[in-house]
């Protein structure tokens, strides 16, 4: 089996998503950094992450430790938290509550505290800036609940980090991670007419919206799909439950807009509907952390095995192969 670093070799940009806090994202990041020592990495985070103490649980978090030559982007106020020798390369015009995001090169090894942009366009611009400074691979540490920002526009590949901190029942962790994996890999359906502001439920056929209500379009059979401008929830589905959803594609902006429990999602599929997204994410691996921040832990072997069976992706144990 290849190492995580080897697995990511083909991708110019990679993001990390955590199923929860303390899922071991930073450990995964440090591991990728170690396993990619031969190439010039660039590193930032989506929003704020990388504090040495977890603000929610108060547990000591491992810092991100990078080798000399790494390109980094973080908010100005956090520069003083890094103990790396810094060469300032550029400013980004992206302002966070902690100051403007600046790009710098590490001239020594050291630990860094990262807070990057949290808007898709800014993230993809930052990625291009990194490349122009000679980065060979860009890593984005995706903070909690920012799945939507890991779309292909930002990163070519995504790693889903799961762990015991998510739930004390291992089966729940495995099942929810597998469901999340499934949502992340939903097919992409382009709808060029969609705008940022579009709300409500709109019927479409052949990639274009139909000039009628969703109910009407379902009744007449003209709809090939419904676009949900907001969330796809049980509430949003209620008006359509009495109608046939056979061969209907339900489309949302991205998988974070799907607020259905897994059984409700399965029920939809059994009725012949399918679900798609405008912007998909490309998960390439799942990592597991058997240690919880709340004082209990799973049997690492069992957790790894169960997860490997449940998800169609390579699974890595954060601790086991770590040095």
């Amino acid at each position, binding site marked *: 089996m290849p190492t995580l670093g080897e697995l990511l070799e083909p991708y110019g940009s990679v993001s990390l998503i955590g199923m929860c806090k303390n899922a071991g994202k930073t450990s995964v990041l440090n591991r990728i950094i170690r396993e990619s020592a031969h190439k010039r990495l660039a590193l930032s985070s989506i929003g704020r992450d990388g504090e040495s103490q977890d603000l929610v649980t108060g547990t000591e978090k491992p810092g991100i430790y990078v080798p000399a030559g790494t390109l980094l982007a973080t908010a100005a106020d956090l520069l003083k938290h890094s*103990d*790396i020798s810094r*060469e300032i390369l550029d400013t980004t015009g992206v302002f966070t509550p902690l100051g403007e995001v600046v790009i710098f090169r590490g001239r020594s090894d050291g630990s860094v505290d990262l807070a990057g942009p949290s808007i898709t366009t800014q993230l993809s611009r930052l990625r291009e800036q990194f490349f122009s400074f000679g980065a060979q691979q860009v890593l984005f540490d995706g903070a909690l609940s920012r799945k939507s920002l890991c779309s292909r526009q930002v990163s070519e590949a995504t790693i889903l980090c799961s762990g015991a901190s998510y739930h004390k029942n291992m089966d729940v962790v495995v099942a929810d991670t597998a469901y999340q994996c499934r949502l992340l890999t939903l097919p992409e359906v382009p709808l060029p007419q969609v705008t940022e502001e579009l709300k409500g439920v709109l019927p479409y056929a052949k990639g274009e919206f139909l000039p009628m209500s969703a109910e009407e379009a379902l009744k007449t059979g003209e709809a090939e799909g419904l676009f949900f401008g907001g969330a796809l929830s049980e509430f949003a589905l209620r008006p359509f439950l009495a109608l046939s959803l056979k061969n209907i594609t339900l489309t949302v902006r991205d998988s974070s807009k799907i607020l259905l429990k897994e059984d409700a999602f399965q029920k939809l599929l059994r009725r012949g509907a399918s679900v798609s997204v405008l912007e998909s994410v490309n998960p390439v691996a799942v990592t597991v952390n058997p240690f919880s921040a709340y004082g209990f832990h799973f049997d690492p072997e069992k957790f790894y095995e169960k997860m490997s069976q449940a998800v169609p992706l390579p699974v890595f144990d954060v601790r086991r192969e770590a040095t």
Partner: protein
Amino acid sequence: MKALSYEQKERIGFTYITGQLQPSSPYGTERVRELSPVENKTELLRQLDNVRRMLSVPEDGSLRRMLQLFHGLKMLRPTARKGRENDLNEIELFELKRFLLQTAEILPLWKELQEKWQLQGLRLADTEAALDLLDPHGHRVASFYLEDDSSPLLTLLRQEKRSLEAELHRAPSDELYARRSLVAAQEESEEQRLRSELSKKLRPYLGDILQNMEAIGELDLTVEKARLAARFGGVYPEIRDGQLDFSQMRYPKIENFTPISLSLPIGSTVITGANMGGKSVALKTLALNVYLIHCGLFPFAQKAVCPLFDALLFLAEDAEDTDKGLSSFGGEILRLQEALDTIRKGFCLVLLDEFARGTNPDEGAALVQGLTEYLDGLPVMAVLSTHYDKVAQKASAHYQVVGLRNASEEELSARLRNLDGAGSLKLLQQYMNYGLYPVWDAGDCPKDALRICRLLGLEEEILSLVENNYGI
């Protein structure tokens, strides 16, 4: 001249004009945003003259290259000002260094262009010495890093940190990490000391840097002024006391605009003309072009002679009055009183658009007549547009809008016959000539209203009743 309010600038089309200016640098953008009348006559003449000098040289690759460099500039005035009394942090030092590198690239282009332009009162200082401070090794790369040899202590600390890091690679241990952290903290405080030292050494150059920022802003604005004049046909205005004379003046916001020629004597001038005849546009055109001159921009005309005014007063019916609970007439009178105060204090251009249009025609006419006569006796240039009769004879000059005077009625009514309401109005506007011509015999207002009613197909029965009452 006093600066106009935003609403007034909007009304006379000045904001439209400034919207056409597309400066490349944040310093130029700031200049455009703050564009207002230049108080000092010598300064105003210098600015106008610089536009003329720039226009006399065709745009070339060097100018475009310089503007590209302008485009990359960031607004760093606050940083430079902060540096005069405070230490700068690493990001501020980085940004200043980048600015100095950019200046070094701009400087030769500026020298080459200035050779041809010969602009007055604009100087870009050489700041190479400041750059040397921030880039002692002469790498001339836009990044900021305190090199190991910045101080003997830093050399030592960096060496120690590096060797600890090498050891950590071979055999990581908590004890090594801790030692490394300690050295890193010492490194940080030494860097802090060096940045403070650097900030102090930079201080003597900040004056030049700040002045360069101003010069770049003015240069950027002047380029845009010249481009605007080239695009819309601006002319170098002659500033002459007590004389206002515009030939073929234009209002760029309106396409297919009929140019207006206008000379104003001291005292009042009256513009009369048909409904839809563009009297308001004539006043706006005059106001805009006079204001442009005062702001150091070329007016849009073939020839422009203009005095310097202490104030430009434009009185027109204002929607704001009714918002304040005043009748529009009441509001007009209050604003007239305010204007009269200003008029007594300095030399003003006063523009009154259909004053007293909202009150009864007999009293309204008498009011405008009286006001015209009053203003005619004052050291002002006043222009009143009006419908009312017997006003022009109280003024020193009288202009009329050409209107439909030169249009063939048969041709017009034949073409109007097949059109709907909106279409007729459009066609009528096409035939309407908004030009002004001087009237020497102080005649009455043209009676175009009935003609327009007829052309637009108002019922004949009404028209004949009107004509009976009117005694035609």
